[in-house]
């Protein structure tokens, strides 16, 4: 079975690099995008198994990415986990309405995040 592919969409390269590093160690195939537009393109092109999505981003923002993914037949089935540094009120409700798999405030607990990803791609705990 080929490695599960995770698309990380975040405008902060440091965050993208950190997540890529960790996820690769966990055995995931990681593709990245640094803005919303790239995120959508990557989602269509690379067909990730799960998408980690930041909300406050240039070129559209996380919600526009989320809406496009959910309205496209190619990407609507891909689980999305939101990882945001925003403290804006109501943001979690809004994301959940759009059908996200998980929601984390930065700085998040990496373990919890990984658990959520594993759950989203239909895997058991690591090592299983």
């Amino acid at each position, binding site marked *: 079975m080929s490695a599960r592919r995770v698309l990380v969409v975040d405008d902060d390269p*440091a*965050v993208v690099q*950190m997540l890529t*590093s960790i996820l690769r160690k966990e055995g995931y195939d990681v593709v990245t995008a640094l803005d919303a537009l790239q995120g959508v393109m990557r989602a269509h092109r690379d067909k990730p198994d799960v998408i980690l999505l930041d909300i406050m981003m240039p070129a559209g923002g996380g919600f526009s990415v989320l809406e496009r993914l959910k309205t496209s037949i190619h990407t609507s089935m891909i689980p999305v986990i939101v990882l945001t*540094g925003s*403290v804006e*009120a109501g943001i979690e409700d809004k994301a959940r309405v759009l059908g996200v798999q998980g929601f984390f405030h930065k*700085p998040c*607990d990496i*373990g919890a995040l990984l658990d959520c990803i594993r759950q989203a791609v239909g895997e058991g705990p690591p090592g299983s």
Partner: protein
Amino acid sequence: MKQYTWTVASLPSPLRLFLTVLVIVFLAEAAVMFLLPVLLPGVEGLAGAIADASILTVLSAPFLWWFIVRPLCSTAMAEQARAVTIVAHSSDGIITINEQGLVESFNQAAECLFGYREEEVLGKPLNFLMPERYRDAHRRGLERVRSTGESHLIGKTIELYGLRKDGSEFPLELSLAAWKTAKGAFYTGIIRDITERKQVERALEARVRQWETVVGLCQRALAGADPSTLMDEAVALVAQRRTFTQDDVQFLQVVSNVLLAAIQRRRAEEALRESEERFASFMSHLPGLAWMKDAEGRYVYINESYEKTFHMKLSDLCGKTDDEVWPPAIAAQYQENDRQVMRSRAALQTIETALHDDGLHYWLVCKFPILDENGTPAMVGGAAVDITDQKRMEETLQALYLASLAIQEPLALRARLGRLLQVARDVLHMDRLNILLADSAGQWLEMVASTEAGEPLETLRVPIGPEGGGLAQAYRTQQPIVWDGQGPVPEALRLKPPYDQVKAIRSQAFIILPLVVHGRVIGVLATDRRTSRRPFEPALLGLLQLFATQAALAIEHARLYEQVTRHAEELEQRVEERTRALQEAQAQLVQSAKLAALGTLAAGVAHELNQPLTVIRGYAQALMADDRLDLETKADLDRIQAQTTRMARIINHLRDFSRQSHGTFEPLALNQVIEDSFTLLSQQLQARNIEVVKALDPGLPMIPGDRFQLEQVFINLITNARDAMQPQGGGRLTVTTRVAGGFVEAAVADTGPGIPEAIRDLIFDPFFTTKEVGQGTGLGLSISYGIITQHGGEIRVENRPEGGAVFVVRLPITKHAAGVERQESRSGA
């Protein structure tokens, strides 16, 4: 006839004759005595005497002839001739008869009168000259004269009829004279034909009778006899004559003129009488006074009303002036007005005063000049009506009006009502006036004002029921009650014991009026008068009602005014409260705005910090999973991770502060929250030797809230308390909780220096801190303020009297119960 007439002629005076004879005899005798001795010396005795007498006679004879006889003879002859001439030429008939009644003389005029010649009648009896009817009387008269020598006819003039020779009679006037001679007595009658005179006399008499008739007719005409009857009489009078003479025509003309005048006069008189009757009737029924005075101001007429009003009779007043009737001041007033009317010749309307039995009255007077035919004012007429009542009514109304104006002033109404009642009492001539108002429950009528001084008003009240008598009845029925004191007061109107002892309303004659405002009765106006006084005037009730209406309105106004004043005060108070609340709200708003601005900033900062923190934490966690690392390194990584957790908490604080917290409300036990806060800090407090006293009310109800946020608040407060007490070290920190109204109240008190008054308003501001740089962010209290406000509670700080500050947090018990449910359901989704 000539021989007789001589004797009656006038002679030389007998004395003169006598003296003449004596002189002649004396002189002749003297001559004889002188001559005798010469001529016949010695002759004595008889011869001498004869000689002497002869000589004397011879000597005196010529003198006697010359001086005596000759004058006497000539006088007698002249007299006789004169008498004969007079008789002959007299126009009156002169007849002389003798004692036998035979005619002695019959002059020419008599011949003409009787138609007889003198020759035919001389020596004949007089009978044939008189009509048969006089002859007896004539005979008797003659006999009586002959026997007694007296006749009542002598020296008189009588009228009788004579009989002419042709047998006709004629009227004559006879003057009879008697004279006597030696031959006896003679009677001479002087006869005058008075036929013409008689005719004239008769005509005159007829005229006189006519005029008398005319006068009689006039008098009867004037007296009101029927003119046509009078005319008939006049014609009948004339018709008695066989023929109408010129006189008759004239007479009838005069009569008709007179009657015409009489008729006109009578008509005029009737018209005048009718007019006068009308005038008199009019005047006597005139309710007002009417009078007339002449130009000198003397009364000439007054009507009956005048007589009755001033108890004077027209007859008494007539001809008197005002000065004589009225007191000087009043008379002067009348006369001045009269003079003005006379001067101006125009009517004058004015008001005069007059003295009546019961004092001064006012009269509305119209005075006018009555002009004579020359246009000169001859009299002053006057008419007047008594306007005293109107005048008094006016004055009364005026006084009441002023009183009612005064009671329109709402301020101090009750204090003033008493005085106003006194005004009303005086102008209405009542003894007492009282105002009683119903209490709010409608059970009692309470006295609020009275004209009686010294009554303890507050205690005077009567029940609205049978015991309240007329007062209660007037109130209940809303009808005025008038009892004029005739007889005992009816039982229904009588106050029952013990209220009959209320002096101010105990009376025999009274009027009780309900005080009604807008159809609602609020009390009664009670007024009374001692029975000895005059009865109530008809207008009194109306005036009282007027006053009652005004008083009721005024009382109502006063009540409304009080209400309005009270409302205004309440309103003012509420506005004050609201203003204060608003100011507080505004202060809060300002605070909130500051916090909101900071929140926006914090939100941005939090996001930006979260990014690198995420990276740091991510790497640290990832490294810790690396089995190749030694324990020392793993411990370092653990510290890194702990610090990122701390940083994350700071950032979360900032996030909470921005009130974009995702904190959830749940039912909380505040005591537990406080205990949790202490678990984080108790180590530090112990280290600083701070005594902690907890006085927590175990019966606190649960409150809705965010556990972590509230914990944060108390951590802040405890930390602040700790820091406040730090310089001295030690100290005591007291935390108390209790229920206060709908709130749970927690107080955190320290024994530090307290909060300077100057910074009390600043203490909840963001970034305001009294701590040294690096020691505090200045956000703690600000965040606490935001959290508590978000919970619908409040936080305040006070300085304790015993020193130190106390922060008091109040949180509502039930206010956010619905919010709790919502939060729970959402978090469960």
